[in-house]
């Protein structure tokens, strides 16, 4: 198999990879996003650029992915949702992404638009994540679009998908992942997990279904107690471990700002360093660190588990 991206190359080389996450917001100014990506160069092999996360109408992830690659020198994983585009628009964006030199796409069904900040919008879902994966692989491998129409200079990029190890029943989620593999998914990033048991049970059922797609386990170091508390309360189906939430809360009571910041860093590093080391011993091929705007933490964590810190 040919690797078009650094991400895929490293996975194929058997290197344990790290990916980060960047979130363009409702703005035309991408300076902060680009600056946030720069410190991660050399640490994360690539960063996801979110596409209207939680169905918020934000700046185009295609444009943001391109500018991060160009101006920060950070390879991107362009997230692409089916919520907002039919197969024509998706085809157009995949072609556009390839023309701009993007090498990885994460195919997502996407949160329902009614959960976002324009809740009355028409939800599209002409395709879903499985079919978007199928479409992209057709474009790349066969050089045709979904309707079989030939593409002049087909795109060369990789397609990844998401899976939620917290899903209950997990088997239904894994069977859907199997469909994604059949459709041609090349890598998987998981929803946030906090415990090794979740990782283990994921691989158990993964193997039961003979799934081979490389997995990057999603983790979420939390910049402060507020972020942790929000996540715990508002992301259904996932909760922050009680003890972790409690010590973060204790840290939030430290009055000195610098000291507080250091404490947060220490708590996160302690928890996630051990967790990542355990993940490295599992069948996972990498870790996806979803700590938007917490570059210091991401760098430090990666350096430590690589034995550089």
């Amino acid at each position: 198999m040919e690797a078009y991206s650094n991400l895929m190359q490293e996975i194929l080389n058997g290197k344990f990879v790290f990916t980060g996450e960047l979130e363009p917001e409702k703005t035309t100014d991408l300076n902060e996003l680009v600056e946030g990506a720069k410190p991660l160069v050399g640490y994360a092999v690539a960063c996801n650029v979110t596409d209207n996360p939680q169905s918020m109408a934000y700046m185009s992830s295609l444009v943001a992915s391109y500018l991060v690659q160009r101006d920060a020198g950070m390879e991107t994983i362009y997230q692409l949702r089916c919520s907002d585009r039919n197969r024509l628009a998706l085809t157009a964006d995949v072609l556009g992404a390839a023309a701009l030199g993007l090498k990885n796409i994460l195919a997502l069904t996407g949160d329902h638009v009614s959960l976002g900040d324009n809740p009355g919008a028409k939800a599209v879902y002409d395709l879903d994540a499985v079919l978007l994966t199928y479409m992209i692989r057709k474009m790349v491998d066969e050089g045709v679009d979904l309707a079989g129409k030939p593409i002049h200079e087909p795109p060369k990029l990789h397609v990844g998908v998401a899976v939620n190890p917290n899903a209950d029943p997990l088997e239904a989620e894994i069977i859907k992942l199997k469909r994604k593999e059949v459709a041609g998914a090349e890598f998987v990033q998981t929803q946030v997990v906090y415990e090794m048991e979740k990782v283990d049970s994921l691989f158990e059922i993964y193997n039961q279904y003979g799934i081979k797609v490389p997995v990057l386990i999603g983790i979420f170091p939390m910049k402060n107690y507020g972020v942790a508390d929000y996540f715990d309360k508002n992301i259904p189906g996932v909760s922050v471990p009680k003890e972790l939430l409690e010590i973060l809360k204790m840290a939030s009571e430290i009055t000195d700002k610098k000291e507080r910041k250091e404490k947060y860093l220490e708590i996160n590093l302690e928890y996630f360093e051990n967790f990542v080391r355990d993940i490295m011993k599992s069948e996972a091929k990498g870790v996806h660190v979803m700590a938007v705007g917490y570059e210091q933490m991401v760098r430090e964590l990666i350096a430590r588990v690589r034995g550089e810190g």
Partner: protein
Amino acid sequence: MIVVEQKPLEDILDMVKDCDRMLVLGCDGCSGIYQVGGEKQAEMLSSMLRMGKKTKGENKEGDLKIEASTVLRQCDKEIVREALEGSIGGYDAVLSMACGAGVQTVAEVFPEKLVHPAVNTKFIGMQDREMGDLHERCRACGDCILAETGGVCPIARCAKSLLNGPCGGQVEGKCEVGGYEHDCAWILIYNKLKEFERLDQFLKLRLMRDNRISESPRDLKGSIKYSGGGD
């Protein structure tokens, strides 16, 4: 069946404010069976409208003629014509309590009359008498896949009409849309297929739909094999 819901009285009064001679027309089909737009409801609505209009004083009292009637099925041109031919001349407008198809049937049969809807047509559904609820069950997609999905329709019952669910929005079998109250259709499908030892169907990658099948307007030409008429 087609599920309808009566519009708020204020909206109806506003809609018919310049109609003096009006027939409130119920339907004994779906709308009547659900007791939203049957004979009794047509009578009730007509008396409410008479009262409402009198209170508002928009019409001269002597001119006001609001009467109720019902037909067997408003979505059948022959039935509508036969039932109303003799009496329709006495009215300027018809306020229909049938689904949108019924409203338009009346309007097509009597093109010189104004026909307004008194109900909102909601969905094709199932009734749960015990709970007094109505639930959407079909979207008339034109290509029924219930045989593959354990008899649970993902088009009507999955908030995203996914062919390859469940999406990441399901939590313990509930759907992210509507605050985790509705069952996730794809978990229902999974459970059903598992029960019937047909998980191979669940594993199947479903290719994209040809949406031309469900694009409006749709017709089935020359396909009626009976004479209509309610016999």
